[in-house]
């Protein structure tokens, strides 16, 4: 049954609706545009509250590198406003439209922070959580609080912005976010590296990241993934390809791409191609938005120390139908054969010895009900997580069960 959706248009309306739910003991599913409703454990709530009407950019000061907006503001609006002044969200939030079958750009800025979505540049500039400066929200106690502020350097009190980023609406309903924005690079280019095997290319990625050439994207694209790209140069080869992105002022990018190629060529056996700024933009948007993986298969996201990717690469190749490495190997996307959908334990056991965690990003409703979507936590940490949840939402009103069954 599809419930009616509560759509408050102001902070006060949001507060009153949450307070009402607390008093009545009615659970609330919290969402923005609903574009990532399929992410996380299924929420069975009595009411749905959407923040999409809490919309609009209310402060933008390009010279101060800061913007403030209602959480319901669509990303398309945020990005267009920033682009007019040559700025952007440096953490390059992914748009999961493709994998959850939605139009691109509809996701809200609130949803981006609630899910802590970051793209390929995360390895250089940090995640969404690193760019969230201030939040106004309604807690699960029906109280309005503000956290953080509009300045970057701020250690006044606990950093609640970090806590709210990535909390998937389980602690509070954010209504307004203040975030850091940054100038867009003048130009960009990509060095494509071609080689015989994954180990070799992953080592090349790590070598590039350990150089002083300020690489802002480092991905490995197996043949299946590369074949899905709109960039013609990627579709041709029979060998595996890695991509390294460089951004900055034109003379600097030109120098660094030469120097980087020279550094990687020292060992021999690798081939090189280059992409211009246009193709670079296309390719990295495809990597960011998961357009290079099957749009239908169950999808796991593995976060691990980059060197572990090489250790596990053979196993990754065997168990996945398709895969892709981002963040220099620190982020691995696995599209599993449908029969593997529930094999969470196997994946998590493989990671356990190395540090890291696995999240089931896309799977059927029944699978997400059965399989822990987020990495299960050791007892003491799980107990702390529950106490943190209850400090904000003592009656478990907000998005109950979204992250963990007991949270």
């Amino acid at each position: 049954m599809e419930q009616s959706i509560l759509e408050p248009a102001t902070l006060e309306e949001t507060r009153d609706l949450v307070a009402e739910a607390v008093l009545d003991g009615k659970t609330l599913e919290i969402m923005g545009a609903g574009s990532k409703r399929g992410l996380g454990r299924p929420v069975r709530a009595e009411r749905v509250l959407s923040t999409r009407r809490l919309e609009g950019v209310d402060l933008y000061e390009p010279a101060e590198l800061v913007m403030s907006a209602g959480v319901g503001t669509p990303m398309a609006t945020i990005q267009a406003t920033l682009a007019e002044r040559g700025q952007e969200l440096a953490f390059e939030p992914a748009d999961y439209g493709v994998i959850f079958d939605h139009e691109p750009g509809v996701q809200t800025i609130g949803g981006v922070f609630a899910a802590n979505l970051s793209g390929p540049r995360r390895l250089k500039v940090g995640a969404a959580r690193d760019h969230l400066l201030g939040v106004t929200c309604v807690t699960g106690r029906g109280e309005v609080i503000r956290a953080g502020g509009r300045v970057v350097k701020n250690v006044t009190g606990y950093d609640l912005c970090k806590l709210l980023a990535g909390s998937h609406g389980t602690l509070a309903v954010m209504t307004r976010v203040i975030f850091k924005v940054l100038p867009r690079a003048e130009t960009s280019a990509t060095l494509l590296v071609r080689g015989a095997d994954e180990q070799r290319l992953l080592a090349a990625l790590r070598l590039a990241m350990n150089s002083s050439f300020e690489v802002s994207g480092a991905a490995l694209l197996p043949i299946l993934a590369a074949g899905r790209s709109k960039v013609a140069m990627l579709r041709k080869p029979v060998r595996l390809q890695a991509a390294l992105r460089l951004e900055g002022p034109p003379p600097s990018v030109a120098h660094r791409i030469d120097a980087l190629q020279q550094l990687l060529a020292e060992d021999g056996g690798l081939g090189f191609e280059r992409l211009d700024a246009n193709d670079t933009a296309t390719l990295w948007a495809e990597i960011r938005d998961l357009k290079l993986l099957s749009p239908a298969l169950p999808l796991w996201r593995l976060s691990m120390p980059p060197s572990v990717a090489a250790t596990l690469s053979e196993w990754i190749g065997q168990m996945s139908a398709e895969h892709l490495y981002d963040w220099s190997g620190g982020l691995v996307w696995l599209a599993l054969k449908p029969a593997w959908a529930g094999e969470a334990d196997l994946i998590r056991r493989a990671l356990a010895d190395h540090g890291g965690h696995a999240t089931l990003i896309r799977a059927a409703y029944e699978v997400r009900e059965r399989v822990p979507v987020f990495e299960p936590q050791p007892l003491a940490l799980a107990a702390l997580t529950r106490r943190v949840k209850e400090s904000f939402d003592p009656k478990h009103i907000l998005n109950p069960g979204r992250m963990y069954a007991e949270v």
Partner: protein
Amino acid sequence: MEMPALDRDSLAKRDRIVAALRAIVPGEGVIANVTEMRAYECDALSAYRTLPMAVVLPASVQQVSAILKLCNDEKIKVVPRGGGTSLSGGSLPLGDGIVLGMGKFNKILDVDFQNRCVVVQPGVTNLAITRAVEHEGFYYAPDPSSQIACSIGGNVAENSGGVHCLKYGLTTNNLLGVEMVLPDGSVIRLGGRHLDADGYDLLGVMTGSEGLLGVVTEVTVRILKKPDTARAVLMGFPSNETGGDTVASIIAAGIIPGGLEMMDRPAIHAAEDFCKAGYPRDVEALLICELDGTAQEVDHLIDIVAAIARQHHASFIKVSESEEERTRFWAGRKAAFPAVGRISPDYLCMDGTIPRSQLAHVLKRMEEMSAHYGLRVANVFHAGDGNLHPLILFDANVPDELRKAEDFGADILKLCVEVGGVLTGEHGVGVEKRDLMPSMFNENELAQQQRLKCAFDPVQILNPGKVFPKLHRCAELGRLHVQRGALPFPDLPRF
């Protein structure tokens, strides 16, 4: 500064607690005599001093866990301490509590170039991390002025910054993982060598929590490759406004410098007298802008920055031509605090952050306050990120001057909040700014922060009396007082 009343029960069981601590940490690891405890009676906010009941210096995670469990069961307060360099009194001891010194946790556990990270014990100094990796051309980015002495555990507790955080971030942006002990003695790990910790971002909450939530026993930080080149430009201006406008224009031009610092006339003169850095004396404001990256990029950007400065009527522009000259440009700025210490018997260092556009207004108001209180003030300023460090000059031997200086400081910080900024950018709240918290947060907000503390520390043994002006019992904070809204919203669309 009023601290919580001493708890008689705790004082009465002092001997028993000391004996129990000795059973956990044998030998010299427990200090209970007054002479030896003097070394721990204060941190870098030395105006405040208190002797604790005892000092314990554990050497293993098991010992930290056993100490915290003991204190939690016995309701004994615990003040964690790293290098003792807090400027806000974060590790000021409590008379009815113990100090938990982490100095014996001084080992670098692993240098992992493959994953660009270093795993260390919390007592390792900030600078020692860079020292351990610089032979391969790497460094640890956050560089607080006290980096030679401050511990990385303390950096986590305070979310320390430094002159390079405009481009490279604060501690929180460079921290990958911790192992920590909760007050009940349980040991947990947050994050690791991978980029994103799972679950709630408790790592983010721990960073800057000022020793109120847990005791960190292991730290994993990200290291970066040193840029090929770094060059600095000195720029002198006829007014604070033109200096401030230059900062705004540099950033608006899309340039994020590695460092962007400003000093006002009193600070310039003090620094130049102290260490002959080559600063011009006939300007009202001085900017130091450092650009780093490949040589091509740095040369390209230096030309742009110099052109911007000329547009804003800079009367002095000098670009460093050698590494030695670049270091000298910084020497004056880095010595600004001791330089000011030479021209005044005492000074208070404040730490507010403001939106950059408010700079000229705030400096002007500060001049008025300076006249009102009859106390001089010198300003050094992390201009790029709006973090002000006004140094209020006073003489503690003149009756009432400390109080006047503190009132002046409080007025400055309230002004920072008034113009959209915050009370502290990098030094922490501690005891120093504790009573100003209500000027920034309302009761709901303070209560919610304290509820979060209760989730970590339900008995409230960790560092009470710091950060929050009023202590509430966790049970009292947990009660729900929900009111049905004034508006029933009959017209609210519900489709």
